[in-house]
């Protein structure tokens, strides 16, 4: 794990690499998220100050794109593909089953113990493997609700 100092220093370097160019806001936020795994508010404020853009604008961009996260994510990230191909092969039952398994209600995506984050994505491009889920970067194809629950059980 990188220390606060190392992460902050990286953000400074990211800004320098992009020459404090306002139009590079999106790549800067992407690189920053790589460091922190999400976009902490004080870092967004710092980026806004350094680039001389109003914080409301930075916040607007950070909340527009789904790739950016403003809250910390869980240790394990589960992404369920709900693209068309997966959907017609019943990915929604997998979503329902995993939500129940992880006790996630409504729009919650991260478990209270910060162990899991469950996201649905629109098409991973692995349509041939539908329905597909990705756990911590590894793709699992031809899933069913029970198989998915079993995968989670293996991690726990």
């Amino acid at each position, binding site marked *: 794990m990188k220390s606060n*100092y190392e992460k902050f220093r990286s953000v400074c370097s990211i800004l320098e690499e992009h020459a404090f160019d306002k139009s590079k806001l999106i790549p800067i936020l992407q690189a920053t998220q790589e460091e922190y795994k999400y976009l902490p508010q004080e870092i967004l404020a710092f980026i806004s100050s350094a680039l001389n853009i109003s914080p409301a604008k930075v916040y607007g961009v950070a909340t527009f794109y789904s790739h950016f996260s403003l809250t910390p994510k869980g240790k394990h990230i589960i992404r369920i593909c709900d693209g068309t191909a997966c959907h017609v092969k019943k990915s929604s039952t997998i979503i329902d089953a995993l939500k129940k398994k992880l006790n996630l209600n409504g729009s919650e995506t991260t478990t209270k113990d910060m162990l899991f984050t469950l996201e649905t994505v629109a098409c991973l491009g692995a349509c041939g493997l539908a329905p597909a889920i990705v756990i911590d970067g590894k793709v699992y194809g031809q899933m069913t609700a029970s198989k998915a629950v079993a995968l989670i059980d293996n991690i726990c």
Partner: protein
Amino acid sequence: MEKYLIINGVKIFFENEKNILEIIQKAKIELPTFCYHSELSTYGSCRLCMVEVEGTGIIPACSTPATSGMVVSTNTEKIISMRKIIVELLLANHDRECTTCQKSQSCKLQTLARRLGIENVRFKNVVHKTDRDLSTYALVREQDKCILCGDCVRFCDEVQSIGALGFVNRGSKSVVCPNFGKDLELSECVYCGQCSRVCPTGAIIPRSEVKDVWKALSNKNKKVVVAIAPAVRAAIGEVFGLAKENGTEAAGKIVTALKMMGFYKVFDVSFTADMTIVEEANEFLERIKENNNLPLFTSCCPAWVKFVEQYYPEFIKSLSTCRSPQGMYGSIAKRIMPKILGVNKEDLVVVSIMPCTAKKYEARRKELANNGEIDIDYVITTQELAMMIEEAGLRFQDLDAYAFDMPLGFKTGAGIIFGNSGGVTEAVLRNVASGMTDGQDESEQFSFVRGEDGRREAKINLSGRELKIAIIYGLKNARQVLRELKAEKRKYDFIEVMACPGGCVGGAGQPIYNDLSTRKNRAKVLYENDKTLELHKPQDNPYVQKLYNDYLGNAPGSTKAHEYLHTHYKYRKRYKESVVISDNSSNGGVDIKVCFGNHCMKKGSKEILKHIVDYVGNKNYKDKVNISASICLEKCFSAPNVKVSNTTISKASDKSVEEAIDKEIK
């Protein structure tokens, strides 16, 4: 060849109109729109201005340029049905408690629903009830009334260059709010309130203080004095059908109305505007003499003042230290008036009526308080005055005129034209350059500074020295000028800035106006009012002279005058956040804050932070310090800055920081 459109069967000629919508408006058809403002960029979000063009189909009029010969229909069945759907969709996501909304009657959504004869909303109610943002004195935000037309966002960005409000999230989760969804108070908002002027609904409104004023008025032990700003008299008539084509000056009726409501004394802010000129002109001449802190920036617009404090601290010294007319009125009312009126200060309630929302904020500025007490208790806007008149059941249009109370009721024309962009400049010139052109019409002598543009320039010769003057409205224009000054591309001696388009007549506290002609009429009313007055030069105001003689050390610029009529400014930090590098505050570590503001970053804060982290590591201080990166320590001119415990080290070096850390830890 003449260009024309056939609009609903009628041939309408056009020239250089930007789009079909403007031509339709020219044809005296009010095409509904929430998001089109001629002063803002075309946004195309509300989809209400849809028209049917023969051969093309249904298209938005706001973003379609006209081609001669187009056959346009504005009211086909399809279009009407679409408009109804749009309004229903908006209503399904809108707090529909219209009867208790301050915007009722002037709400465009309400008006349109009525015009379209919407009987029921066929869609599900999806409004999310949110709390009102009451964090500022100036404005109230109610997100559940927002229809996301983006007018406020664009005004704040495109005209004021602030960007305090922005869109957040995406799709149906979109909202408009200040940074990080926080309260407005924590944003960069300068409270000009133009967002509330362009808001078609009640999502952003000036914060009303009417209730408090009524309460004070009904308290038998209190004497409530009030003063009205110049621009108020030029606009209030609009609410009561008095404006007509050329506008109406309604000061006399306002005095009557206020008296009927129970105000003890009714004064005129134009009087203190005269004083402001006298004081500011004196300051200007001194700065010219000493060639110091030029250009002089006017300081009567609180939004502009906050703007300088926030973004251009290096120019704070350029701001005139004179209080604004409201500030002077407050000071005199609270500190001199009790003596004149023979009333206990404690029993006096001071109210001002302003065309402005930022004045509500200004009244509460700590820098204007006297021993921690604010001078002006309540600030109400022209809109709120109209509400009070209506609440009191007064038939304003039928009231007789009545005179202001003395001594703060007498004014020269200079104090009146203050309400227009260019008015302050003109008034200052009437003072500093008055001797030059005898025999001319005093009210026209400097009329060359008037105009419609947001950025104007003038030159005048003052005893052999050429003075360069800039007159600005709109903070984006102001920012541009400041950038040029900073880059030494321009040189000026005097710069007047008003945040609102057109100056105070176009203030956000005024009755909502949608076309430019209304604002122009208000300006005209003030210039005509100036003409009808006996005196035009502020220094000729006998009551001003008397006030100086009796209470203010006889002359402008005196010590007393400074005590009562001047103020000071401070650098206002825009960010409240800081980045934690290490935190041992639970066992009482020493705070080390490294400034990472723009100036400091350029001067090497990154290296200093590195050095501190290394040093603290080497010295085994790790558990004894709380290091953070701060934006910022507000000492930009002596960058880089580091604060160790309570000491700020400016122009910090590795060594000076080391010493400071050692000292604190030992």
